[in-house]
């Protein structure tokens, strides 16, 4: 975090719960992080860890029975939680944009790309249609689409998967947002196409100073892309720090296990370290540390809810028995 300067986004103890007939699902239950200008935050977690709901909460896209029940989401100092839908609409797509895993969620299949892009500009700016077209064209070129004029006249189904994702990213960039939330945008793509998208994303953040939250389950993707990592488990942020801190010396036993379970080239053929069991159901989750039943370091203390420990080097960890730096050997 760039000290002194106000971060683009600050999330403080966010809690988003879903009030279902079967009970309360605490999808997000205490998450705090901050992203500064031009910074890339990797929000990492497995299915059901609450990483996507965190993203949706920031954009105010949580539908009933879900509700943000606690915490603050400060976007350039303004709390988004109590904001009305009108103000939220003005921010969404303009100052804060989202890129989804499936680009067809962003794109309308029956409208030409130019229609969709121009509409996104005119919704937030008072410019002429011609100026909006130029802006759309310029943005498409920026995400690496050759012959943008031809592409603007096409329909989404005429694009390949990687190309569609580029268009979705271009739409997110149209109004030069201060913050982009990307929810697993490369998961469905091939390795060479993923590399292209990551390259563009990285370049854009450096050039425009846009803050980027990259939500993913894949530690290897954020390793190359992110500045900081926030690891989530069962709705809570369990560990945060810079990429090097978290990946080289994980403090939380979950992060430690997660890194150990990634096949790596130094240990070919060896058994992968595995985390026993599976992610707990978030419905009526028992109090205490949610990871304790799978944790090799769990003690009786873990029956209580672990609090966040701030370390001197800017790291945060939510664990009573963190993995000490020397254990990684």
């Amino acid at each position, binding site marked *: 975090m760039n000290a002194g300067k106000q971060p683009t986004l600050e999330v403080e103890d966010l809690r988003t719960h879903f009030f279902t007939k079967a009970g309360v699902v605490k999808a997000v239950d205490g998450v705090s992080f901050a992203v500064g200008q031009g910074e890339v935050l990797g929000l990492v977690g*497995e299915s059901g860890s609450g990483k996507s709901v965190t993203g949706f909460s920031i954009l105010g896209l949580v539908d009933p029975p879900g509700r943000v029940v606690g915490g603050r989401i400060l976007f350039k100092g303004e709390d988004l939680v109590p904001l009305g839908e009108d103000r939220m609409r003005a921010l969404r797509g303009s100052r804060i944009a989202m890129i989804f895993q499936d680009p067809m969620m962003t794109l309308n299949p029956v409208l030409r790309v130019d229609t969709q892009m121009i509409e996104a500009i005119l919704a937030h700016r008072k410019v002429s249609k011609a100026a909006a077209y130029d802006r759309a064209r310029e943005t498409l070129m920026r995400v690496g689409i050759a012959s943008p004029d031809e592409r603007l006249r096409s329909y989404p189904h005429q694009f390949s998967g990687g*190309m569609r994702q580029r268009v979705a990213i271009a739409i997110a960039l149209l109004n030069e947002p201060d913050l982009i939330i990307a929810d697993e945008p490369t998961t469905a793509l091939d390795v060479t*196409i*993923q590399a292209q998208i990551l390259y563009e994303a990285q370049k854009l953040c450096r050039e425009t100073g846009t803050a980027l939250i990259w939500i993913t389950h*894949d530690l290897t993707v954020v390793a190359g892309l992110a500045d900081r990592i926030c690891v989530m488990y069962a709705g809570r942020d369990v560990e945060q720090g810079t990429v090097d801190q978290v990946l080289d010396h994980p403090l939380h036993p979950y992060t430690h296990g997660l890194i150990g*379970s990634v096949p*790596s080239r130094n240990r070919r053929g060896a058994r992968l370290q595995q985390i026993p069991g599976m*992610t707990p159901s978030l419905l009526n989750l028992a109090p205490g540390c949610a990871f304790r039943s799978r944790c090799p370091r769990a003690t009786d203390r873990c029956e209580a809810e672990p609090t966040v420990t701030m370390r001197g080097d800017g790291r945060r960890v939510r664990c009573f028995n963190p993995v000490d730096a020397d254990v990684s050997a």
Partner: protein
Amino acid sequence: MSVLESQSSTRVVPGSAAGEPPLIEVRHLSKRFVKALDLAEKIAARLGADVHEEVVHAVDDVSLAVSKGEVVGLVGESGCGKSTLGRMVAGILAPSSGEILYRGSDRATLDGAAARRAALAVQMIFQDPFASLNPRMRVADIVGEAARVHGLVDAAGFDAYLDEVLRQCGLDPSFKRRYPHQFSGGQRQRIGIARALAVKPEFIVCDESVAALDVSIQAQILNLFMDLRESLGLTYLFISHDLGVVEHLSDRVVIMYLGRVVESAPTEALFDEANHPYTQALLREVPRLESRHSSFEPIKGEIPSPLDPPPGCHFHPRCPHAMARCREEAPALREIAPGRMSACHLNDG
């Protein structure tokens, strides 16, 4: 077939003991999917319009041998034909041309008991643990049905056999009366594995079998694959787009691009020093835990449509080393070092 035989020197050399034929061998295997003309198009064609049948060469003259006990990783991006090849090897899809040999004899020529044995010997584990299990069948039937039908186990020993198979795959036998929806993704994948193992196969085709799983669950399933290989002496054709997983598991890696094999080498050799420009690009772009703040310098361009592949070497439009020759002539897959094959004109220079 004698013509094909004469070219058999282009085969991927198996690492097996001399004399013993490889467990599974495919020779000059091709699969073409043809979209036939509809009535209107046929009439138009009759009248001289320029309409043609659309043909996708999903797999184009691929030869490959897998010895007993070997794990061969088959890697490629979307549309490279890796799944089609896997399905043909598993017997789900009939090849358009070429042959598949089981222990040295052509599977198409076998009949009766020998054909059944050859078919049961190769089983497949699918990608999607949600779509590949019948939601209306109980686990006991999903796993046990084939073994019972094929008479691999008698009625008296059936329950014990089923429990044993389930236990082997890390499933609690007391869950066998349950339906697939009552299990998590990782457990469902174990059910899929148990179903494959229940007919005592020798050869397993894993088609992206861990791609849909979370990292920690993926590690559990990969460990299970390695344990089963050791305890049952299984041979795998492990199809994946994930080079990290393939590197971890495989003895040998085969890289495909748009229906053709571009490189094949022992895992270590391939990852240390890839020969084909496509393999090099692929390896460079695999995200790794070790590569921090990397400035991605991605390979240019998209994967061309298999409907209309580029002439010559399929990779030439994206290749940084492409020459005039690459645009006209498809490079043959040739041995460049013992056990290593590559299809690139650069090796001739």
